[in-house]
Protein backbone atom coordinates (compact mmCIF):
# COMPACT_ATOMS: atom_id res chain seq x y z
CA UNK A 1 0.00 0.00 0.00
CA UNK A 2 2.68 2.49 1.01
CA UNK A 3 6.25 2.12 -0.15
CA UNK A 4 8.98 4.48 0.93
CA UNK A 5 12.07 4.07 -1.19
CA UNK A 6 15.44 5.52 -0.30
CA UNK A 7 13.83 8.72 0.99
CA UNK A 8 16.10 11.50 2.18
CA UNK A 9 14.61 14.60 3.65
CA UNK A 10 15.51 17.74 5.52
CA UNK A 11 13.59 20.39 7.43
CA UNK A 12 15.11 23.86 7.49
CA UNK A 13 18.51 22.43 6.72
CA UNK A 14 18.35 19.69 9.33
CA UNK A 15 18.63 16.16 8.00
CA UNK A 16 15.66 14.07 9.14
CA UNK A 17 15.87 10.98 6.93
CA UNK A 18 18.89 9.41 5.30
CA UNK A 19 17.78 7.05 2.51
CA UNK A 20 15.06 5.42 4.55
CA UNK A 21 13.11 2.57 2.98
CA UNK A 22 10.12 0.75 4.35
CA UNK A 23 6.95 -0.90 3.24
CA UNK A 24 3.41 -0.83 4.63
CA UNK A 25 1.41 -3.90 3.58
CA UNK A 26 -2.16 -3.48 2.35
CA UNK A 27 -4.95 -4.41 4.72
CA UNK A 28 -2.70 -4.68 7.75
CA UNK A 29 -2.01 -2.58 10.82
CA UNK A 30 1.56 -1.40 10.80
CA UNK A 31 3.11 0.44 13.70
CA UNK A 32 5.91 2.96 13.27
CA UNK A 33 7.82 3.43 16.47
CA UNK A 34 10.91 5.28 17.45
CA UNK A 35 12.32 7.77 19.87
CA UNK A 36 10.71 11.17 20.13
CA UNK A 37 11.93 13.54 17.47
CA UNK A 38 13.18 10.95 15.00
CA UNK A 39 10.68 12.02 12.38
CA UNK A 40 7.64 9.75 12.66
CA UNK A 41 5.25 12.64 12.14
CA UNK A 42 7.49 13.87 9.35
CA UNK A 43 7.27 10.45 7.69
CA UNK A 44 3.46 10.61 7.74
CA UNK A 45 3.57 14.09 6.25
CA UNK A 46 5.62 12.69 3.38
CA UNK A 47 2.94 10.11 2.74
CA UNK A 48 0.24 12.76 2.43
CA UNK A 49 2.31 14.91 0.12
CA UNK A 50 2.65 17.81 2.57
CA UNK A 51 6.41 17.46 2.46
CA UNK A 52 8.68 16.47 -0.37
CA UNK A 53 11.98 14.69 0.13
CA UNK A 54 15.30 15.77 -1.27
CA UNK A 55 15.62 12.43 -3.03
CA UNK A 56 13.82 9.10 -3.06
CA UNK A 57 10.18 8.35 -3.62
CA UNK A 58 7.02 7.69 -1.66
CA UNK A 59 4.40 5.51 -3.30
CA UNK A 60 0.87 5.43 -1.93
CA UNK A 61 -1.59 3.06 -3.56
CA UNK A 62 0.63 2.91 -6.63
CA UNK A 63 0.95 6.70 -6.96
CA UNK A 64 4.16 8.67 -6.66
CA UNK A 65 3.00 11.25 -4.14
CA UNK A 66 5.58 13.92 -4.90
CA UNK A 67 4.76 13.87 -8.62
CA UNK A 68 1.00 14.27 -8.28
CA UNK A 69 -0.85 17.30 -9.56
CA UNK A 70 -2.93 19.23 -7.06
CA UNK A 71 -6.18 17.66 -8.20
CA UNK A 72 -4.85 14.12 -8.05
CA UNK A 73 -3.22 14.78 -4.70
CA UNK A 74 -6.51 16.03 -3.28
CA UNK A 75 -8.30 13.03 -4.74
CA UNK A 76 -5.79 10.80 -2.99
CA UNK A 77 -6.18 12.67 0.28
CA UNK A 78 -9.91 12.14 0.18
CA UNK A 79 -9.15 8.45 0.58
CA UNK A 80 -6.75 8.93 3.48
CA UNK A 81 -7.78 9.57 7.07
CA UNK A 82 -5.29 11.44 9.24
CA UNK A 83 -5.28 11.73 12.99
CA UNK A 84 -3.19 14.71 14.02
CA UNK A 85 -0.79 14.42 16.91
CA UNK A 86 -2.33 17.61 18.33
CA UNK A 87 -5.89 16.86 17.20
CA UNK A 88 -6.16 20.05 15.08
CA UNK A 89 -9.92 20.36 15.43
CA UNK A 90 -11.55 23.31 13.69
CA UNK A 91 -12.19 25.58 16.66
CA UNK A 92 -15.09 27.47 15.05
CA UNK A 93 -17.19 24.36 14.58
CA UNK A 94 -18.94 22.17 17.11
CA UNK A 95 -17.82 18.60 17.66
CA UNK A 96 -20.61 17.43 15.40
CA UNK A 97 -19.64 19.80 12.58
CA UNK A 98 -15.99 18.85 12.94
CA UNK A 99 -16.77 15.21 12.34
CA UNK A 100 -19.24 16.09 9.61
CA UNK A 101 -16.75 18.38 7.88
CA UNK A 102 -15.20 15.86 5.43
CA UNK A 103 -18.64 14.51 4.56
CA UNK A 104 -20.05 17.95 3.88
CA UNK A 105 -17.09 18.95 1.75
CA UNK A 106 -16.88 15.87 -0.41
CA UNK A 107 -20.34 14.40 -0.63
CA UNK A 108 -23.84 15.57 -1.30
CA UNK A 109 -25.42 13.23 1.20
CA UNK A 110 -28.79 14.25 2.61
CA UNK A 111 -28.63 15.88 6.02
CA UNK A 112 -30.28 12.96 7.79
CA UNK A 113 -27.66 10.53 6.51
CA UNK A 114 -24.81 12.81 7.53
CA UNK A 115 -26.38 13.11 10.97
CA UNK A 116 -26.61 9.38 11.40
CA UNK A 117 -23.11 8.69 10.14
CA UNK A 118 -21.60 11.32 12.40
CA UNK A 119 -23.53 10.17 15.47
CA UNK A 120 -22.47 6.58 14.81
CA UNK A 121 -18.80 7.55 14.65
CA UNK A 122 -19.14 9.68 17.78
CA UNK A 123 -20.84 6.75 19.50
CA UNK A 124 -17.88 4.57 18.51
CA UNK A 125 -15.49 6.89 20.36
CA UNK A 126 -17.94 7.33 23.23
CA UNK A 127 -18.68 11.00 22.68
CA UNK A 128 -22.15 11.07 21.16
CA UNK A 129 -23.33 13.15 24.11
CA UNK A 130 -20.68 15.78 23.41
CA UNK A 131 -21.82 16.42 19.87
CA UNK A 132 -22.87 20.01 20.47
CA UNK A 133 -19.81 21.08 22.49
CA UNK A 134 -17.12 23.32 21.03
CA UNK A 135 -13.54 22.01 20.81
CA UNK A 136 -12.47 24.50 23.48
CA UNK A 137 -14.86 22.78 25.89
CA UNK A 138 -13.20 19.37 25.50
CA UNK A 139 -10.44 17.78 27.52
CA UNK A 140 -7.28 16.70 25.72
CA UNK A 141 -8.33 13.06 25.63
CA UNK A 142 -11.82 13.92 24.40
CA UNK A 143 -10.33 16.06 21.64
CA UNK A 144 -8.16 13.10 20.59
CA UNK A 145 -11.24 10.94 20.28
CA UNK A 146 -13.15 13.56 18.29
CA UNK A 147 -10.17 13.86 15.96
CA UNK A 148 -10.20 10.08 15.65
CA UNK A 149 -13.88 10.09 14.76
CA UNK A 150 -13.21 12.72 12.13
CA UNK A 151 -10.33 10.73 10.66
CA UNK A 152 -12.49 7.64 10.21
CA UNK A 153 -15.81 9.22 9.25
CA UNK A 154 -15.15 8.71 5.56
CA UNK A 155 -14.19 5.04 5.90
CA UNK A 156 -10.98 5.77 3.98
CA UNK A 157 -8.70 3.15 2.41
CA UNK A 158 -5.78 4.22 4.57
CA UNK A 159 -5.71 5.77 8.01
CA UNK A 160 -2.66 7.39 9.52
CA UNK A 161 -2.87 7.56 13.28
CA UNK A 162 -0.34 9.92 14.84
CA UNK A 163 -0.27 8.88 18.49
CA UNK A 164 -3.89 7.89 19.01
CA UNK A 165 -3.35 6.70 22.59
CA UNK A 166 -2.04 9.91 24.12
CA UNK A 167 -4.16 11.20 26.94
CA UNK A 168 -6.59 8.29 27.01
CA UNK A 169 -7.64 6.58 30.22
CA UNK A 170 -7.38 2.75 30.25
CA UNK A 171 -11.05 2.29 29.34
CA UNK A 172 -10.92 4.73 26.43
CA UNK A 173 -7.60 3.20 25.40
CA UNK A 174 -9.16 -0.24 25.11
CA UNK A 175 -12.12 1.24 23.28
CA UNK A 176 -9.85 2.93 20.76
CA UNK A 177 -7.77 -0.21 20.33
CA UNK A 178 -10.93 -2.15 19.62
CA UNK A 179 -12.02 0.49 17.15
CA UNK A 180 -8.74 0.42 15.27
CA UNK A 181 -8.88 -3.37 15.13
CA UNK A 182 -12.50 -3.42 13.96
CA UNK A 183 -11.89 -0.87 11.21
CA UNK A 184 -9.01 -2.96 9.99
CA UNK A 185 -10.50 -6.43 10.30
CA UNK A 186 -14.01 -5.67 9.11
CA UNK A 187 -13.54 -2.91 6.55
CA UNK A 188 -10.03 -3.95 5.53
CA UNK A 189 -8.69 -0.44 6.12
CA UNK A 190 -4.93 -0.27 6.02
CA UNK A 191 -3.68 1.45 9.14
CA UNK A 192 -0.43 3.09 10.07
CA UNK A 193 -0.02 3.62 13.75
CA UNK A 194 2.55 5.92 15.26
CA UNK A 195 2.71 5.28 18.97
CA UNK A 196 5.02 4.95 21.92
CA UNK A 197 2.98 2.50 23.99
CA UNK A 198 4.43 -0.86 23.03
CA UNK A 199 1.98 -2.71 25.26
CA UNK A 200 -0.92 -1.23 23.31
CA UNK A 201 0.77 -1.57 19.96
CA UNK A 202 1.46 -5.29 20.37
CA UNK A 203 -2.23 -5.93 20.86
CA UNK A 204 -3.19 -4.64 17.42
CA UNK A 205 -0.18 -4.26 15.16
CA UNK A 206 0.63 -6.90 12.57
CA UNK A 207 3.98 -5.41 11.85
CA UNK A 208 6.30 -2.89 13.48
CA UNK A 209 8.94 -0.61 11.99
CA UNK A 210 11.42 0.91 14.38
CA UNK A 211 13.04 4.05 13.08
CA UNK A 212 15.92 5.97 14.61
CA UNK A 213 18.54 8.36 13.36
CA UNK A 214 16.92 8.76 9.97
CA UNK A 215 16.83 5.08 9.14
CA UNK A 216 14.60 2.09 9.67
CA UNK A 217 16.67 0.16 12.21
CA UNK A 218 14.44 -2.85 12.79
CA UNK A 219 11.25 -4.40 11.42
CA UNK A 220 9.21 -7.40 12.36
CA UNK A 221 6.12 -8.62 14.14
CA UNK A 222 5.71 -7.23 17.66
CA UNK A 223 6.76 -10.61 19.09
CA UNK A 224 9.91 -10.73 16.99
CA UNK A 225 10.91 -7.23 17.96
CA UNK A 226 10.22 -7.74 21.62
CA UNK A 227 12.74 -10.55 21.65
CA UNK A 228 15.07 -9.29 18.97
CA UNK A 229 18.71 -9.06 19.76
CA UNK A 230 19.16 -5.87 17.75
CA UNK A 231 20.65 -3.40 20.19
CA UNK A 232 18.19 -0.71 19.00
CA UNK A 233 15.13 -2.84 19.63
CA UNK A 234 16.46 -4.16 22.87
CA UNK A 235 17.13 -0.72 24.20
CA UNK A 236 13.94 0.90 22.93
CA UNK A 237 11.50 -1.75 24.05
CA UNK A 238 13.39 -2.33 27.25
CA UNK A 239 13.27 1.39 27.94
CA UNK A 240 16.93 1.44 28.85
CA UNK A 241 18.58 4.83 29.05
CA UNK A 242 21.95 3.63 27.82
CA UNK A 243 22.35 2.24 24.36
CA UNK A 244 22.63 3.33 20.77
CA UNK A 245 19.45 5.41 20.87
CA UNK A 246 20.25 8.89 22.11
CA UNK A 247 17.83 10.42 24.58
CA UNK A 248 19.31 13.87 24.17
CA UNK A 249 18.56 16.08 21.19
CA UNK A 250 21.98 16.55 19.54
CA UNK A 251 23.90 19.17 21.51
CA UNK A 252 27.29 20.02 22.86
CA UNK A 253 28.51 18.22 25.95
CA UNK A 254 26.53 19.10 29.07
CA UNK A 255 29.43 20.12 31.26
CA UNK A 256 30.60 22.43 28.50
CA UNK A 257 27.18 24.01 28.10
CA UNK A 258 26.94 24.58 31.84
CA UNK A 259 30.34 26.22 31.81
CA UNK A 260 32.27 23.65 33.90
CA UNK A 261 34.81 23.14 31.14
CA UNK A 262 36.00 25.72 28.67
CA UNK A 263 35.42 25.10 24.97
CA UNK A 264 37.78 22.33 23.90
CA UNK A 265 41.24 23.85 23.66
Amino acid sequence: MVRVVELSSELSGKKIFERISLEIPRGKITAVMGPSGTGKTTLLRHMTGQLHGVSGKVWVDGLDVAALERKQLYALRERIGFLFQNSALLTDYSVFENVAFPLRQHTRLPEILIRNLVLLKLQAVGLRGAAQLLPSELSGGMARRVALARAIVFDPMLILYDEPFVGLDPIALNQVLKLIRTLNRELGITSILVAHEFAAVRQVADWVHLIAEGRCVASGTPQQLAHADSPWAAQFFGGKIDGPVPFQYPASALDEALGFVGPSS
Partner: protein
Amino acid sequence: MKRLNKHSAIVDACYEIGATGWFLVVLLVAIPRSLRYLRETIRQIWFVGAKSLIIIMISGLFVGMVLSLQLYYTLSIFGGTSALGTVVALSLYRELGPVVTALLFAGRAGTSITAEIGLMRATDQLSAMELMAVDPIAFVATPRFLAGLISMPLLVAVFNMMGLFGGHLVGVNWLGIDNGTFWSNMTSNVNVWTDVINGEWKAFVFGAAISLIAVFQGYNAPPTSEGVANATTRTVVWASIVILALDFVMTAFLM
Protein backbone atom coordinates in the same frame (compact mmCIF):
# COMPACT_ATOMS: atom_id res chain seq x y z
CA MET B 1 12.61 31.91 2.70
CA LYS B 2 14.61 33.46 5.46
CA ARG B 3 14.44 37.21 5.93
CA LEU B 4 17.52 38.86 7.22
CA ASN B 5 17.20 41.54 9.87
CA LYS B 6 20.25 43.36 8.61
CA HIS B 7 18.42 44.46 5.49
CA SER B 8 16.94 47.89 5.52
CA ALA B 9 13.27 48.44 6.19
CA ILE B 10 12.84 49.33 2.53
CA VAL B 11 13.93 45.90 1.35
CA ASP B 12 11.56 44.37 3.88
CA ALA B 13 8.73 46.55 2.64
CA CYS B 14 9.44 45.66 -0.99
CA TYR B 15 9.49 42.00 -0.11
CA GLU B 16 6.15 42.37 1.64
CA ILE B 17 4.55 44.31 -1.20
CA GLY B 18 5.75 41.80 -3.77
CA ALA B 19 4.59 38.84 -1.73
CA THR B 20 1.20 40.46 -1.13
CA GLY B 21 0.82 41.14 -4.85
CA TRP B 22 1.65 37.55 -5.62
CA PHE B 23 -0.87 36.40 -3.02
CA LEU B 24 -3.53 38.45 -4.79
CA VAL B 25 -2.91 36.38 -7.91
CA VAL B 26 -3.23 33.20 -5.86
CA LEU B 27 -6.53 34.41 -4.40
CA LEU B 28 -7.94 35.45 -7.76
CA VAL B 29 -7.03 32.11 -9.31
CA ALA B 30 -8.76 30.38 -6.40
CA ILE B 31 -12.06 32.24 -6.88
CA PRO B 32 -13.61 29.64 -9.21
CA ARG B 33 -12.66 26.88 -6.77
CA SER B 34 -14.05 28.78 -3.82
CA LEU B 35 -17.46 29.07 -5.46
CA ARG B 36 -18.09 25.59 -4.09
CA TYR B 37 -17.84 27.12 -0.64
CA LEU B 38 -20.39 29.85 -1.25
CA ARG B 39 -21.84 29.19 2.18
CA GLU B 40 -18.50 30.03 3.72
CA THR B 41 -18.38 33.32 1.83
CA ILE B 42 -21.86 34.17 3.08
CA ARG B 43 -20.79 33.34 6.62
CA GLN B 44 -17.80 35.63 6.26
CA ILE B 45 -19.95 38.49 4.94
CA TRP B 46 -21.91 38.06 8.13
CA PHE B 47 -18.82 38.23 10.35
CA VAL B 48 -16.94 40.86 8.41
CA GLY B 49 -19.76 43.03 7.11
CA ALA B 50 -22.96 42.66 9.07
CA LYS B 51 -21.17 42.66 12.41
CA SER B 52 -19.40 45.93 11.53
CA LEU B 53 -22.72 47.67 10.92
CA ILE B 54 -23.19 49.13 14.39
CA ILE B 55 -19.77 50.76 14.60
CA ILE B 56 -20.12 52.03 11.04
CA MET B 57 -23.54 53.53 11.69
CA ILE B 58 -22.55 55.26 14.91
CA SER B 59 -19.35 56.63 13.38
CA GLY B 60 -21.19 57.79 10.28
CA LEU B 61 -23.72 59.67 12.38
CA PHE B 62 -21.06 61.52 14.35
CA VAL B 63 -18.87 62.25 11.34
CA GLY B 64 -21.89 63.75 9.57
CA MET B 65 -22.79 65.83 12.62
CA VAL B 66 -19.33 67.25 13.14
CA LEU B 67 -18.94 67.86 9.43
CA SER B 68 -22.11 69.88 9.36
CA LEU B 69 -21.00 71.91 12.36
CA GLN B 70 -17.55 72.66 10.97
CA LEU B 71 -18.68 73.45 7.47
CA TYR B 72 -21.49 75.66 8.72
CA TYR B 73 -19.02 77.98 10.40
CA THR B 74 -16.70 77.99 7.41
CA LEU B 75 -19.55 78.66 4.99
CA SER B 76 -21.04 81.39 7.14
CA ILE B 77 -17.82 83.37 6.67
CA PHE B 78 -18.68 83.58 2.97
CA GLY B 79 -22.41 83.83 3.49
CA GLY B 80 -22.88 80.54 1.73
CA THR B 81 -24.61 78.43 4.34
CA SER B 82 -27.30 77.52 1.81
CA ALA B 83 -24.68 75.21 0.27
CA LEU B 84 -24.33 73.23 3.51
CA GLY B 85 -26.26 70.22 2.17
CA THR B 86 -24.08 70.10 -0.90
CA VAL B 87 -20.75 70.29 0.88
CA VAL B 88 -21.75 67.78 3.55
CA ALA B 89 -22.91 65.31 0.91
CA LEU B 90 -19.89 65.82 -1.33
CA SER B 91 -17.39 65.50 1.53
CA LEU B 92 -19.08 62.30 2.65
CA TYR B 93 -19.56 60.66 -0.73
CA ARG B 94 -16.25 61.51 -2.27
CA GLU B 95 -13.87 61.34 0.64
CA LEU B 96 -14.86 60.77 4.23
CA GLY B 97 -17.31 57.93 3.65
CA PRO B 98 -14.88 55.61 1.88
CA VAL B 99 -11.80 56.57 3.89
CA VAL B 100 -13.25 56.57 7.40
CA THR B 101 -15.21 53.39 6.75
CA ALA B 102 -12.10 51.75 5.36
CA LEU B 103 -10.00 52.70 8.38
CA LEU B 104 -12.69 51.42 10.75
CA PHE B 105 -13.08 48.28 8.68
CA ALA B 106 -9.35 47.62 8.82
CA GLY B 107 -9.42 47.93 12.58
CA ARG B 108 -12.59 46.01 13.16
CA ALA B 109 -12.62 43.29 10.49
CA GLY B 110 -9.08 43.26 9.10
CA THR B 111 -7.47 42.50 12.43
CA SER B 112 -9.91 39.74 13.24
CA ILE B 113 -9.33 38.11 9.86
CA THR B 114 -5.57 38.18 10.41
CA ALA B 115 -5.76 36.88 13.94
CA GLU B 116 -8.20 34.15 13.01
CA ILE B 117 -6.21 32.81 10.07
CA GLY B 118 -2.94 33.14 11.97
CA LEU B 119 -4.37 31.11 14.82
CA MET B 120 -5.72 28.52 12.44
CA ARG B 121 -2.23 28.10 11.03
CA ALA B 122 -0.69 27.94 14.50
CA THR B 123 -3.08 25.22 15.65
CA ASP B 124 -2.60 23.15 12.47
CA GLN B 125 -6.18 23.70 11.34
CA LEU B 126 -5.03 24.72 7.89
CA SER B 127 -2.97 21.54 7.57
CA ALA B 128 -5.91 19.55 8.84
CA MET B 129 -8.04 20.99 6.05
CA GLU B 130 -5.41 20.20 3.48
CA LEU B 131 -5.33 16.63 4.70
CA MET B 132 -9.10 16.43 4.48
CA ALA B 133 -8.62 17.43 0.84
CA VAL B 134 -10.08 20.90 1.41
CA ASP B 135 -7.90 23.61 -0.06
CA PRO B 136 -7.44 26.27 2.65
CA ILE B 137 -6.86 28.98 0.05
CA ALA B 138 -10.25 28.28 -1.49
CA PHE B 139 -12.01 27.53 1.79
CA VAL B 140 -10.47 30.01 4.22
CA ALA B 141 -8.58 32.75 2.38
CA THR B 142 -10.70 33.51 -0.68
CA PRO B 143 -14.10 33.67 1.09
CA ARG B 144 -12.71 36.24 3.53
CA PHE B 145 -11.20 38.20 0.69
CA LEU B 146 -14.48 38.19 -1.23
CA ALA B 147 -16.42 39.10 1.89
CA GLY B 148 -14.30 42.22 2.37
CA LEU B 149 -14.74 43.13 -1.27
CA ILE B 150 -18.51 42.81 -1.10
CA SER B 151 -19.04 44.31 2.34
CA MET B 152 -17.10 47.55 1.99
CA PRO B 153 -19.26 49.28 -0.66
CA LEU B 154 -22.38 48.33 1.29
CA LEU B 155 -20.92 49.61 4.54
CA VAL B 156 -19.89 52.85 2.86
CA ALA B 157 -23.42 53.37 1.57
CA VAL B 158 -24.78 52.90 5.09
CA PHE B 159 -22.08 55.18 6.52
CA ASN B 160 -22.94 57.92 4.02
CA MET B 161 -26.62 57.65 4.72
CA MET B 162 -26.07 57.94 8.45
CA GLY B 163 -23.64 60.82 7.86
CA LEU B 164 -26.19 62.67 5.79
CA PHE B 165 -28.76 62.08 8.49
CA GLY B 166 -26.38 63.46 11.13
CA GLY B 167 -25.51 66.40 8.94
CA HIS B 168 -29.17 67.17 8.38
CA LEU B 169 -29.86 66.86 12.09
CA VAL B 170 -27.23 69.45 13.00
CA GLY B 171 -27.70 71.72 9.99
CA VAL B 172 -31.48 71.88 9.86
CA ASN B 173 -32.73 70.97 13.31
CA TRP B 174 -30.02 72.67 15.30
CA LEU B 175 -28.41 75.44 13.26
CA GLY B 176 -31.70 76.32 11.62
CA ILE B 177 -30.94 76.06 7.93
CA ASP B 178 -34.10 75.78 5.86
CA ASN B 179 -34.93 72.15 5.13
CA GLY B 180 -35.86 72.90 1.51
CA THR B 181 -32.63 74.83 0.89
CA PHE B 182 -30.57 72.03 2.40
CA TRP B 183 -32.03 69.42 0.08
CA SER B 184 -32.57 71.42 -3.10
CA ASN B 185 -29.05 72.79 -3.08
CA MET B 186 -27.74 69.28 -2.58
CA THR B 187 -29.87 67.69 -5.23
CA SER B 188 -28.92 70.21 -7.86
CA ASN B 189 -25.18 69.88 -7.27
CA VAL B 190 -24.51 66.26 -6.35
CA ASN B 191 -24.01 63.97 -9.30
CA VAL B 192 -24.73 60.26 -9.19
CA TRP B 193 -21.77 59.17 -11.26
CA THR B 194 -18.95 61.45 -10.28
CA ASP B 195 -19.88 61.57 -6.62
CA VAL B 196 -21.90 58.59 -5.42
CA ILE B 197 -20.65 55.90 -7.77
CA ASN B 198 -17.02 56.99 -7.80
CA GLY B 199 -17.12 56.95 -4.02
CA GLU B 200 -18.39 53.41 -4.19
CA TRP B 201 -15.52 52.52 -6.50
CA LYS B 202 -13.15 53.74 -3.87
CA ALA B 203 -14.95 51.60 -1.31
CA PHE B 204 -14.62 48.55 -3.50
CA VAL B 205 -10.90 49.04 -4.07
CA PHE B 206 -10.27 49.78 -0.37
CA GLY B 207 -12.23 46.67 0.58
CA ALA B 208 -10.13 44.56 -1.74
CA ALA B 209 -6.90 46.06 -0.41
CA ILE B 210 -7.81 45.66 3.26
CA SER B 211 -8.99 42.09 3.01
CA LEU B 212 -6.04 41.14 0.81
CA ILE B 213 -3.61 42.52 3.37
CA ALA B 214 -5.49 40.95 6.28
CA VAL B 215 -5.66 37.51 4.69
CA PHE B 216 -2.06 37.65 3.53
CA GLN B 217 -0.75 38.65 6.96
CA GLY B 218 -2.77 35.95 8.67
CA TYR B 219 -1.78 33.30 6.19
CA ASN B 220 1.91 34.09 6.50
CA ALA B 221 2.05 34.79 10.21
CA PRO B 222 4.66 32.74 12.07
CA PRO B 223 2.76 30.07 14.06
CA THR B 224 3.49 31.61 17.45
CA SER B 225 1.57 33.96 19.72
CA GLU B 226 4.03 36.73 19.01
CA GLY B 227 3.91 36.03 15.31
CA VAL B 228 0.13 36.35 15.20
CA ALA B 229 0.20 39.48 17.35
CA ASN B 230 2.74 41.14 15.05
CA ALA B 231 0.80 40.13 11.97
CA THR B 232 -2.31 41.80 13.39
CA THR B 233 -0.40 45.01 13.98
CA ARG B 234 1.06 44.88 10.49
CA THR B 235 -2.42 44.50 9.04
CA VAL B 236 -3.55 47.77 10.60
CA VAL B 237 -0.38 49.64 9.67
CA TRP B 238 -0.24 48.43 6.10
CA ALA B 239 -3.94 48.75 5.50
CA SER B 240 -4.01 52.34 6.77
CA ILE B 241 -1.07 53.40 4.63
CA VAL B 242 -2.43 51.67 1.56
CA ILE B 243 -5.90 53.16 2.01
CA LEU B 244 -4.58 56.70 2.23
CA ALA B 245 -2.19 56.23 -0.69
CA LEU B 246 -4.84 54.62 -2.87
CA ASP B 247 -7.24 57.39 -1.90
CA PHE B 248 -4.86 59.97 -3.27
CA VAL B 249 -4.24 58.05 -6.48
CA MET B 250 -7.91 57.38 -7.08
CA THR B 251 -8.95 60.94 -6.33
CA ALA B 252 -6.34 62.21 -8.76
CA PHE B 253 -7.34 59.90 -11.58
CA LEU B 254 -10.99 59.18 -11.03
CA MET B 255 -12.67 62.28 -9.81
